[in-house]
């Protein structure tokens, strides 16, 4: 049985030089930017707000609400259940569908104020080893208590959606270790509704119940 090697990741943010002043331009941008940009704008907040759940779970909804003043549309975009998607392209389609429906029913476009344009960013991920590794459930628990939230983030969020593994790294390893039920329970946690520290505590408690 292979040990579980904890990794961590660092993000490099890139500017795409593309802006949007209204919903139509946002729609066109979301349609054309690389998948790493959609990922960035829907996941950036998870690490920035370490302990507090933010009001807006993605940059698109924040901008639509605060710079365009379109609260209903903002809420619709904010409510997209990212956990349902295991492919960024499907997530992109969902945003486009909502924006398209809005554009069909609202012919008048509202522009944001100058300097408040939406600026498309994307990110590049550097994955690094950490000193932590586990060969059994006890060691796994010890490591979980020590690793940074960036490591936790990498194995839960990045692995599933960006690395296209369709499941988080912890569950994959635990399943191989014979803890199928524990693996399934961690898989079913919706990580987007926790803060990262909250998520760590939840996983630790689940693991403890199997020791």
């Amino acid at each position, binding site marked *: 049985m292979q040990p579980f090697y904890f990794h961590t990741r660092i993000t490099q943010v890139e*500017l795409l030089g593309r802006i949007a002043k209204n919903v139509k331009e946002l729609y066109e941008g979301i349609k054309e930017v690389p998948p790493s940009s959609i990922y960035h704008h829907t996941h950036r907040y998870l690490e920035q707000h370490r302990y507090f759940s933010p009001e807006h779970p993605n940059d698109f909804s924040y901008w639509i609400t605060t710079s365009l003043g379109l609260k209903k549309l903002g809420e619709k975009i904010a409510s997209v259940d990212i956990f349902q998607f295991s492919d960024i392209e499907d997530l992109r389609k969902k945003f486009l569908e909502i924006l398209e429906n809005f554009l069909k029913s609202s012919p008048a476009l509202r522009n944001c104020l100058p300097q408040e344009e939406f*600026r498309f960013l994307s990110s590049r991920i550097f994955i690094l*080893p950490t000193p932590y590794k586990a060969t059994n459930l006890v060691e796994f628990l010890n490591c979980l208590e020590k690793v940074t939230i960036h490591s936790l983030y990498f194995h839960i969020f990045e692995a599933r959606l*960006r690395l296209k593994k369709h499941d988080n790294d912890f569950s994959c390893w635990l399943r191989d270790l014979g803890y199928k039920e524990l693996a399934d329970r961690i898989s079913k946690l919706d990580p987007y509704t926790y803060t990262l520290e909250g998520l760590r505590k939840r996983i630790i408690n689940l693991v403890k119940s199997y020791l």
Partner: protein
Amino acid sequence: MNSRIDDYRKIVGNEIIDELYLLAQKLKGISIQNINSTPSGGGVAEILSRIVPLMQELGVNIWWDVMEAEEEFFSITKKIHNRLHGVDIPLSKKELEHFLEVNDQNTIKMKKWADIVFIHDPQPIALIKMKRKLKNKWIWRCHIDFSSPCRDIWLFLKKFIEKYDVSVFSAPIFSRPLSIRQVLIPPSIDPLSDKNKELEAHFIDEILNRFGIDKEKPIITQISRFDYLKDPIGVIKAFKLVKKYIDCQLVLAGGGARDDPEGERVLEEVKNEASSSRDIFVIYLPPNSHLEINALQRASTIILQKSLREGFGLTVTEALWKEKPVIASCVGGIPLQIAHKYSGILTYTIEGTAHWIRRLLHEPEYARRLARNGKQHVKNSFLITRHIQDYLLLFLSLFNKSDLIYLD
């Protein structure tokens, strides 16, 4: 004495520093050369003087060269700087030719070139012509507010920028459509430098005494170069509005830089405007007056940054790190540092600035809360260790095209 990289462990934690060593190791065998236009004065020189030795200590083969130029070149680059800020001052074809000539001369004078040439700001931008011959990697780092430049100067510079491998901007608002990669790297401050380290109370008192400032009366301070774009006259006007109601003092302190010949004229105007009040202290400091600036910031009740245009606004970062309530203009990179009414106050006018000075002087508990949040934000996002990490990733990314890079 300069701090060592391991001294930062107590501020940011072991893990961050260990990661820096690991990233630095991945750059083994690659040399990096920084080039800018001034060895001292201004944010760029200051950050290079700290980052370069720390990266060397991490084991990176990195050095810093300053281009050679005379007064005339700097008055031209000052005009370029102003036009980039959207200020429409004349700039002739002949002056641009001289600008290119000086760059050309520097390609000859430069004794050694590295595998990665890291150019800071527009002054040495045309050195890029060497890329064809050297076949190495080139980075252009913009430290200036690019949000509304005069079109002609942008087109002039764009020709050079697009020859680089990658460009770097301090805030998303400065990014523009370009055919090359653009990376976001906010600048940073060094918490252990003379400008930002903790100071003994008696040293702070000594500095106040030296300048004749009364420590018992509220002190409103703006630290910046004497430059029209920092609006020192606007600061004095705001102060005079406050002074009608509250007995307080204003400190306007700063220096000049070798590449800013306009400074003296602005200083004279500021002195004239300030001459009517004994409670306004206009302090012109020589380069490297870091301890004095630190002491003045730490002695302040409120710190202002009423810039009309701003790059990132490192004086704001410094003030927030010292846990001071900050009132600053909503320009350039300042909104990245201050969330209005959460980690400081953002204003747009002289009157608005005066209003918030009065509010914060009257509500010290609220001011303290802003200051606490501001310090936490700087700790998370704008310290030198994060900056070093970003630069190491930037260098590594020149050799990796993928958007997922494994550094096992």
